[in-house]
């Protein structure tokens, strides 16, 4: 007896039955069956498994009965019990004893207490969902009614029928009929109102409470169903409503009832067609059975998903939210069940006014049905979605006009978005991405190395952006975390994240999430903005202070874009002899040495050492026939955080622009040389009048070229480089984050590339320009050879004159006839070469002019306005226009158009 050996529950139950009824095993077979069923059926305890709560309750009960001494005794005993570790489920035993306890002063109130317990246990749990908290007045009302119910049920007789379970047993109807207690009328409405109170969503009591609750203590209205037979079917085989109600209650939980069963083909609950039933009952029960179907749908989704780990945190919290709703629904069902049980215990006494009827159920279940319907629709809509997508789907359902539905969806949305907001806070405050299931809208690519971190590592998952977060916000969020990671990984900045942004607490509870969701425009936006400004500003500060970003930008302009004039000029002077040689004979170390010399000799030496050490020479790929001019290039080494702005592509662009500018600069340099030669030799060659025509030709061509190159240089310097640089500088000064700087820089480079005719659209223009440059080089060579031969001739003539004078001084004949003849022949020979030079120059001039004309034609048709203006500047006196009919037409056309505009 005293040992707690492990007999099977059934054996124990049977002996319990025998013991309590005092009958033999055979006699208590019915009761035993019933007991097994009740115990087997019970799905979940309605009371939390807390020993402390139970013991407190017992004490309270004892105190209420004014038995303080007993209460003290009980706590003594309870302590004793706790010290002995024999029992595992102490709370269960205590709870059982509590339920079975009776007030000695009220000997027969078992039923009332039982019902009261249900009523007490339920409401406390009934508002675990925050949504239900907003009904203080209905709560207090409920409390008052509850006490009334307890008082009212005191007089209820403990004797009642055997219940519906003794189908074949003797039914003591005659006995029960005469035993309607006087307080039944009072008990009935309170029971009804208790139920209405437990129904979760009746925000206005009049909407839901059964009519009986609105007539407190009124006399029972006699109805046709005063006496309800306690059998499922009467003699005609027609099913009774009570049986249907019981069935429906099972169907509500998705369990097949006796008459109403799941029809697999039609996927709905149907009443067995063989059952005889009046049409209205059949209709009502089909309508009610819909709840079962809806419940099944939601249940199936949560069951399938809650174990699926890959479904992710957002999915899990969605399932949890659904579960919470279902729990609420189950709570309601258990209240209905207990009501049914109380009815059974009371037998017919309760049927008069507030018993469960299908019609009543239809009213009471109306709101739960709407809720379940919303849930089912939500489940349908969310099928196959996860993460932020799921949150968007839920959010889309929140846009309804029905305030109750909106509150429901809002509540689910709070739970669903909580993990997303947690991700978000971790990301924007710590830069950490803990997204195992790819639910967050920031994606990270682990394959990307740190040098491309800013550009490629993090990206937005467009589909995962919840619809309540705008694209702009999402971008900012991405940027904030990216900046933090950039600071840590690339800049090696070890500032704790708390110092960058002032401390802000992350959303720890779903409640915080709810607050944020309700104020998306205000607080949320503010939070993101604050974090964005602080982080970006800090990042830019670090880049400027520690990594001299702005200085590097300036240096690019000065060195790669030839802004530092004295340095470039000097470099070119030094490099000229080297670069005239074939490209294959150049050595990088020689050139690097020259670069160093150039730096030390010019103002560049005062520049930051950090910048100067990055400056280097680079030789491009050599193709046969290239001279040093073709392959030489300056280079600027970038690494670390700076390389994020000056990416490899950017440096490639810089290199192209540098080559173009270098070439143009070289032309200017060459023309200076040409001009120098002309000036120096003009006086010398005055003595040779036969050359004057050729020289004049040279001067004309040279000044034509000088004009062209000057205009080109002016265009490049002032209309391309300086304008773009100013724009870039303004943008960089105003930039709020690194992306702005990068974008501005890219725009700057693009503008330069296209304005310098380096992009694909102006390839033909560039070819013409190259040809012009080539002509200039050729002209230089031609003029050089002209001067060489002229000077040679001059030297010979001077020599001849000198000799003549010497001899005269010596008193001899100045020249012999032979010498004179030779001199004459030589002069004639030289004069014979002059027409050749003339024609060569003429060809050159002609060729050059035709190229310039073509170039002008292309310029006037160019879409870029500044290029069209360049064409006016190049042809300011309409010199070329007079020669080129095409030019005349097009320029005339544009001018005509301009006139027409005026």
């Amino acid at each position, binding site marked *: 007896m005293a040992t707690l050996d492990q007999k099977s*529950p059934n054996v124990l139950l049977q002996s319990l039955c025998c013991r309590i009824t005092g009958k033999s095993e055979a006699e208590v077979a019915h009761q035993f069956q019933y007991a097994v069923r009740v115990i087997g059926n019970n799905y979940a305890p309605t009371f939390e498994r807390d020993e402390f709560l139970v013991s407190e309750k017992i004490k309270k009960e004892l105190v209420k009965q004014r038995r303080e001494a007993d209460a003290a005794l009980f706590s003594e005993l309870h302590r004793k019990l706790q010290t002995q570790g024999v029992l595992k489920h102490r709370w269960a035993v205590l709870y059982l004893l509590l339920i079975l306890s*009776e007030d000695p002063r009220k000997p027969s109130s078992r039923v009332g207490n039982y019902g009261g317990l249900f009523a007490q246990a339920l409401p406390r749990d009934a508002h675990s969902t925050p949504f239900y908290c907003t009904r203080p007045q209905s709560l207090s009302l409920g409390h008052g009614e509850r006490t009334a119910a307890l008082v009212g049920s005191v007089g209820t007789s403990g004797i009642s029928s055997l219940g519906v379970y003794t189908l074949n047993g003797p039914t003591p109807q005659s006995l029960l009929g005469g035993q309607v207690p006087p307080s039944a009328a009072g008990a009935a409405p309170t029971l009804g109102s208790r139920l209405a109170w437990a129904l979760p969503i009746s925000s206005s009591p009049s909407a839901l409470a059964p009519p009986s609750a609105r007539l407190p203590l009124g006399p029972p209205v006699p109805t046709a169903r005063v006496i309800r037979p306690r059998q499922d079917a009467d003699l005609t085989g027609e099913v009774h409503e009570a049986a249907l109600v019981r069935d429906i209650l099972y169907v509500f939980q998705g369990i097949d009832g006796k008459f109403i069963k799941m029809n697999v083909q039609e996927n709905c609950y149907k009443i067995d067609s063989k059952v005889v039933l009046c049409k209205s009952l059949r209709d009502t029960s089909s309508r009610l059975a819909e709840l079962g179907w809806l419940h099944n749908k939601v249940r199936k989704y949560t069951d399938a998903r809650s174990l699926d780990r890959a479904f992710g945190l957002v999915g899990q919290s969605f399932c949890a939210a659904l579960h919470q709703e279902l729990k609420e629904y189950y709570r309601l069902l258990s209240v209905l069940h207990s009501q049914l049980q109380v009815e059974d215990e009371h037998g017919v006494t309760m049927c008069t006014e507030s018993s469960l009827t299908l019609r009543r159920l239809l009213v009471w279940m109306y709101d739960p049905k709407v809720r379940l319907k919303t849930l089912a629709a939500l489940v349908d809509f969310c099928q196959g979605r996860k993460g932020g997508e799921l949150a968007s789907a839920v959010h889309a359902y929140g846009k309804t006009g029905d305030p109750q539905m909106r509150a429901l969806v809002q509540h689910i949305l709070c739970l669903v978005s909580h993990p997303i907001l947690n991700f978000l806070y971790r990301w924007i405050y710590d830069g950490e991405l803990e997204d195992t299931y790819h639910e967050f809208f920031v994606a990270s690519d682990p394959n990307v190395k740190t040098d491309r971190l800013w550009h490629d590592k993090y990206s937005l998952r467009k589909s995962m952006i919840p619809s309540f977060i705008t694209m702009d916000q999402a971008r900012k969020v991405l940027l904030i975390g990216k900046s933090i990671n950039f600071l840590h990984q690339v800049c090696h900045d070890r500032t704790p994240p708390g110092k960058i942004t002032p401390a802000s607490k992350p959303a720890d509870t779903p409640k915080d999430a709810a607050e944020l969701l309700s104020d998306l425009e205000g607080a949320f936006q503010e939070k993101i903005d604050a974090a964005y400004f602080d982080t970006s500003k800090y990042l830019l500060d670090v880049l400027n202070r520690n990594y001299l970003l702005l200085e590097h930008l300036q240096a690019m302009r000065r060195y790669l874009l030839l802004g530092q004039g004295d340095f470039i000029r000097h470099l070119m002077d030094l490099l000229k002899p080297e670069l005239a040689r074939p490209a294959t004979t150049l050595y990088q170390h020689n050139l690097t040495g020259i670069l160093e010399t150039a730096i030390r000799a010019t103002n560049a030496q005062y520049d930051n050492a950090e910048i100067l050490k990055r400056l280097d020479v680079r030789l491009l790929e050599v193709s046969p026939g290239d001279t040093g001019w073709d392959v030489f290039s300056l280079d600027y080494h970038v690494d670390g955080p700076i390389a994020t702005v000056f990416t490899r592509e950017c440096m490639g662009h810089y290199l192209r622009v540098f080559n173009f500018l270098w070439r143009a600069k070289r032309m200017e340099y060459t023309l200076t040389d040409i001009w120098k030669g002309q000036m120096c030799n003009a006086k010398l060659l005055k003595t040779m009048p036969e050359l004057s025509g050729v020289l004049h030709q040279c001067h004309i061509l040279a000044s034509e070229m000088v004009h062209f190159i000057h205009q080109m240089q002016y265009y490049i310097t002032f209309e391309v480089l300086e304008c773009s640089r100013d724009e870039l500088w303004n943008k960089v000064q105003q930039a709020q984050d690194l992306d702005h700087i990068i974008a501005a820089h890219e725009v700057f480079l693009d503008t330069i590339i296209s304005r310098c005719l380096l992009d694909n659209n102006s390839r033909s223009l560039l070819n013409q320009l190259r040809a012009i440059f080539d002509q200039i080089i050729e002209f230089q060579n031609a003029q050089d050879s002209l001067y060489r031969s002229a000077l040679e001739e001059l030297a010979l003539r001077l020599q001849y004159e000198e000799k003549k004078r010497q001899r005269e001084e010596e008193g001899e004949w100045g020249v012999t006839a032979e010498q004179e003849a030779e001199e004459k022949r030589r002069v004639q020979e030289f004069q014979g070469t002059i027409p050749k030079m003339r024609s060569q120059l003429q060809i050159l001039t002609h060729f050059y002019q035709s190229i310039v004309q073509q170039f002008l034609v292309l310029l006037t048709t160019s879409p870029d306005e500044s290029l069209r203006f360049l064409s006016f500047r190049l042809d300011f006196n309409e010199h070329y226009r007079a020669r080129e009919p095409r030019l005349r037409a097009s320029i005339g056309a544009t001018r005509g158009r301009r006139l027409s505009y005026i």
Partner: protein
Amino acid sequence: MASAANANLNAVRETMDVLLEISRLLNTGLDMESLSICVRLCEQGINPEALSAVIKELRKASESLKVSENCTT
């Protein structure tokens, strides 16, 4: 071994005594044997609410049987 079993037995007995006392305090109307059955059932994880419902039902059944017997006699 034997002493351990003995001690265990003692503990169980004490526990049962305490529980019986509580049961008496609360006026549950359970005697020693039914109480021990109930405790064993609870220890096996049976829902106490269900169990209490069964006990009440059984009591009602036996009472009504008695009443009906009284009527017939």
